């Protein structure tokens, strides 16, 4: 490998840009993200959205997997309680995530790395604000070191 001056910067010292995975339910939050887009309300590009039919589709395994693969934060967005397209899905998601997040905290994983937000299809501004805030929180927490798989690091 050729080494020149610009290449010798230690990757560790590089500005940390967190990788954030956002699971969004198709009916509210994904539409809310679309609205944020059509309203040109920006949020960091390192937030990547995965569309799921409902927040209740999100298995704790998916969240752990994101961390395993190097995500620094995972956020789950769904319809507001009471507004679920499937009427009750987000109520189950709420309990599951509450318990999962509590367990991660119990295991000593930084609690800020996971979040649930309810974002309706009309709340483009909230979507954008939420993502900005979450990205800032994760930035402050720094890279995820406690819940990642060393094999997946480049």
């Amino acid at each position, binding site marked *: 490998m050729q080494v020149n001056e610009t290449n010798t910067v230690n990757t560790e010292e590089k500005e940390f840009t967190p990788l954030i995975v956002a699971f969004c339910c198709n009916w509210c939050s994904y539409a809310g993200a679309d609205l944020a*887009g059509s309203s040109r309300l920006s949020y960091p*590009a390192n937030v990547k959205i995965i569309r799921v*039919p*409902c927040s*209740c589709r999100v298995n704790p395994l*998916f969240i752990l*997997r*994101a961390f395993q693969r190097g995500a620094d934060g995972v956020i789950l967005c769904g319809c507001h309680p009471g507004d679920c397209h499937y009427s009750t899905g987000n109520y*189950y998601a709420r309990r599951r995530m509450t318990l999962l997040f509590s367990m991660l905290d119990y295991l000593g994983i930084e609690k800020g790395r996971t979040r649930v937000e309810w974002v309706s299809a009309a709340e483009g501004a909230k979507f*954008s604000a939420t993502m900005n805030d979450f990205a800032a929180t994760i930035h402050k927490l720094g890279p995820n070191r406690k819940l990642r798989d060393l094999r997946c690091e480049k």
Partner: protein
Amino acid sequence: MQKIGVFVCWCGSNIAATVDVAAVAEAVKGEPGVVFATDYQYMCSEGGQSLIKETIKEQGLTGVVICSCSPRMHEATFRKTVEAAGINPYMLEIANIREQCSWIHKNKEEGTEKAIILAKAAVAKLNLNTPLIAGESRVVKRALVIGGGIAGIQTALDIAEAGYEVDIVEKQPTIGGKMTQIDKTFPTLDCAACILTPKMVDAAQSEKINIYSYSEVEKVSGFVGNFSVTIKKKPRYVNSDLCTGCGACMEKCPSKKTPNEFNMGLDNRTAIYIPFAQAIPKVPVIDTAACLHFKTGKCGICQKTCSANAIDFDQKEELITKEYGAIVVATGFNPLKPTKFDEYQYNQCADVVTSLEFERLMNAAGPTKGVLLRPSDQSHPKKIVFVQCVGSRGQSCRDHSYCSKICCMYTAKHAMLVRDKYPDTDVTVFYIDVRTPGKNFDEFYRRAVEEYGVHYIKGMVGKVEQVDGSLKVQASDLLSNDQMVLDADMVVLATAVEPDPTAKSLATMLTASIDTNNFFTEAHPKLRPVESPTAGVYLSGVCQGPKDIPETVAQGSACAAKVIGLLAKDKLLSNPCVAHSDELLCNGCSTCANVCAYGAIDYVDKEVNDHGKREVRHIAVVNEAVCQGCGACTVTCPSGAMDLKGFANRQIMAEVDAICK
């Protein structure tokens, strides 16, 4: 292995300005499965779609990724496109690089990098897609309307008009509902009976409409297009086929002391009775709690009187099971009974009445033949106080938090009618707010105040007391901040609208959802106001929330339109992105069924072949026509037997992996 084509849309400059589309196409070429990648100005245009179709054929693609606007925008379009070129419409994935990328990022490098990752995630998912085929099911061309009030009647008439059979199930002995008890309607003050009874007659005479009065829904199974409903016909003890409705039995009945429900208990009826003159069907029913024959076994006068031999004391409850394509809930409401509101002395003072009781007192067919008389001493009240929002808009446990919507208007109507008929009567209305949104509503209210001299006081009634046969009303005027005590001869309480008490159990039977107030929940508050979240179950009238008559009728008709739309189909295509249980992995624990909002999961004993070992297992089977594809079951299933087609565990994990690379 898939052969995937990736098409990156410029969307003019919408995407191309912040995403280097050519770079995206280039970057995905190395991804597993990708055999073709290109960019194009407008993928959704005729030209773009032709490009997709031609490439599918030329390259023998098995799947297509389109990097473009949100799938909420054009997923359906592109599904049709790929289907037209001969590949399964579910072998399509869309990477949302407009709303969720180009429109929110300004830096082109950043935008391009993100677009590449989103495209790769879509490719990773598509690599695991399998063709999905929408299931088909037949549609039984008959609708069931539960509740025979104005909402149910309107819906039934409209459906029948379109040529489909409709059954109405009404738990009361007659159809007509609450509107039958109303005297005049606001804001036109036309006679309620005059507009309702012809509709009741139409319903009864329609060849397409079959009325099960004095009947209740006992059991519901099945799913959209294919419901099976068991209806319980309660015994009337009168043979409807023989009865002529002459009423002789009622005249002769010796048991005459039962409070008359139709008149809100303000007078009495006989044990065998027809609720009111225009009842449909005009067939009496025997109230076994009051009937001497049933109580002592001794009477039987009605039987002797009936020249048609219609009285049948041995009649039994009957269960009828029929199939329906659609079910309409039109269970309506009941006014709250203000027994918990001690401050108004409703239980103690006969002259404190509810609005519906007042309605009967003003009605020509009511207990006083339309002459307004105080229930206590049958004298003309000279001073009447109306109290608004009794049980509505409150915070305590005896209150409902919602506005009952119709009270402001009917109170204005009552006040106006009283002042019109008895100009010497002083009428005062205590209100929190007067809410008059509606055509000619505010004009109506202003007429009450300005032309009819009704006193409207913004304030609350704190206490009603009975003193020497008259009532003292303690109240506060919030505008002048005065405390006052008014003399009144009558107090009328505008009690809250409550959903019918059967709503809750019915919702369970239908797996339809209800809100905390027991009103049925609509599928979408704005866009699907007459559908319940359960496919094939529709909502008509006040069961969904407080409404006045015109709104109820409008919703009834809207509901009918939805039902007709469904019944007009010969078969239903279901969303193929539904749950599926792997029979070899299923433990049969039924946890998935516990979280299914649609009752889409059944348990069957099925013989499975587990690597050569045949055995009968108790396992979950998803009814694909009922499943809506939310995925709640998939996460609750510890073994992972339950998965969601189109959003499978592995597919979502592949997206996660691609994003976190």
